[in-house]
């Protein structure tokens, strides 16, 4: 699935890696390709017509009686088709994704909702690629996330089924202190509270919670491993990259990975 991921170019990890050479805008390439295809189709048709009418002389068919104006018009038509497809397809996919997500919400289906959001995200990624819009965040720029929707930024922390701790560290501004207070049940941890564009953000990750382990055993992520809880405004990030208004056990206690 990496080919469809908007962060494939940074190994699916935009908070850590960057595309130092910048994004490439694909829209002009698609338009140019449409123009070339249009021109080639028209030229080929003219060569074929010449070949049929000049008794099978291919050399003459290739160079004589060629209407350059017609080739130009065909190139323009090809460019227009390329532009239309490139612009219309992502818009149509995004609209379909939106409808699917809405239907999922209405029916109470997280699968439909997730599929709709995925389609919407993929269409947006295609649009960004077409226009060469860069969405990467450099690890060294601790304020870079302020340029983005913090919920969007938080979703990018998750890599598969875990959050690499390096992503959490990259999202934490350097001047924010760790305010985690160890306790008898959670012995070690980190907690950082700061704002992004006026939205309160809390990043917290800590060692296994002995209370959770005592009550829920190995079925509790929080009780058996280091987990992160990410609060953006009034909601918690879930492992499925959705946001939740209440604690949802393993869904909102996301395992972290030390790399």
């Amino acid at each position, binding site marked *: 699935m990496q080919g469809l991921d908007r962060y494939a170019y940074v190994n699916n990890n935009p908070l850590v890696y960057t595309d130092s050479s910048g994004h490439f805008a694909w829209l002009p390439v698609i338009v140019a390709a449409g123009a070339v295809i249009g021109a080639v189709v028209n030229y080929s048709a003219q060569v074929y017509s010449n070949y049929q009418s000049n008794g099978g002389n291919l050399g003459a068919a290739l160079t004589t009686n060629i209407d350059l104006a017609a080739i130009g018009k065909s190139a323009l038509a090809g460019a227009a088709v390329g532009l239309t497809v490139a612009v219309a397809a992502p818009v149509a996919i995004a609209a379909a994704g939106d409808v699917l997500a809405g239907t999922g*919400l209405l029916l*109470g*289906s*997280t699968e439909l909702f997730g599929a709709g959001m995925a389609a919407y995200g993929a269409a947006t990624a295609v649009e960004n690629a077409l226009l060469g819009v860069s969405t990467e965040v450099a690890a060294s720029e601790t304020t870079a996330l302020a340029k983005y929707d913090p919920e969007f930024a938080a979703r990018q922390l998750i890599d598969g089924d875990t959050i690499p701790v390096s992503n959490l560290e990259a999202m934490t501004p350097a001047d924010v202190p760790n*305010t*985690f*207070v160890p*306790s*008898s*049940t*959670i012995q070690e*941890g980190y*907690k950082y*509270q700061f704002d992004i564009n006026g939205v309160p953000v809390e990043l*917290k990750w*800590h060692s296994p*919670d002995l*209370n*959770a382990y005592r*009550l*829920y*055993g190995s*079925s*509790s992520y929080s009780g058996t491993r280091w987990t992160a809880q990410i609060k953006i*405004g*009034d*909601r918690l990030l879930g492992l499925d990259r959705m946001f*939740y*208004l*209440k*604690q*949802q*056990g*393993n*869904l909102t206690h996301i395992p972290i990975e030390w790399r």
Partner: protein
Amino acid sequence: MIDYKKLPDYLSPDELRRYFEDILRQIETQPEVDQSYIIDALWELADRQWHTYTLIAPDLAERIEAFIEGVWVQLCDRQDSHLVGKVLSIIGNLGLKRSYEMIKKFSGRYHSQTGQRIDEFIQQVEVLDNGKIEDPYYSLKKNK
């Protein structure tokens, strides 16, 4: 005034009870105290209560529900979706069934971010928690 955000992440049920009683006393005796401050305090305490893996005492729950029921309509009318979201979180993390039944009546009433928050919360409780709002640990028990 206490900055509840800066309280330790783990507080024992007894310590939490003292904090809840302190803020509830303010609610009940000082109606002029800023609602945002009260809701932020309850939001922080409710999150810590969840992490004790024990249910809040019924007498405290009763007093918190009375507060929520008293401010709910006014909060919704203010269209402050984040504050409404925090109240929903308090209801969810503490398992306040009576308040949940009340807010369900507001589903579809607001066509705004506030309305979206209410509908989103109801969807999450109904789909992920099978409607069992009274058990804040339903999702953990599901995996056990």
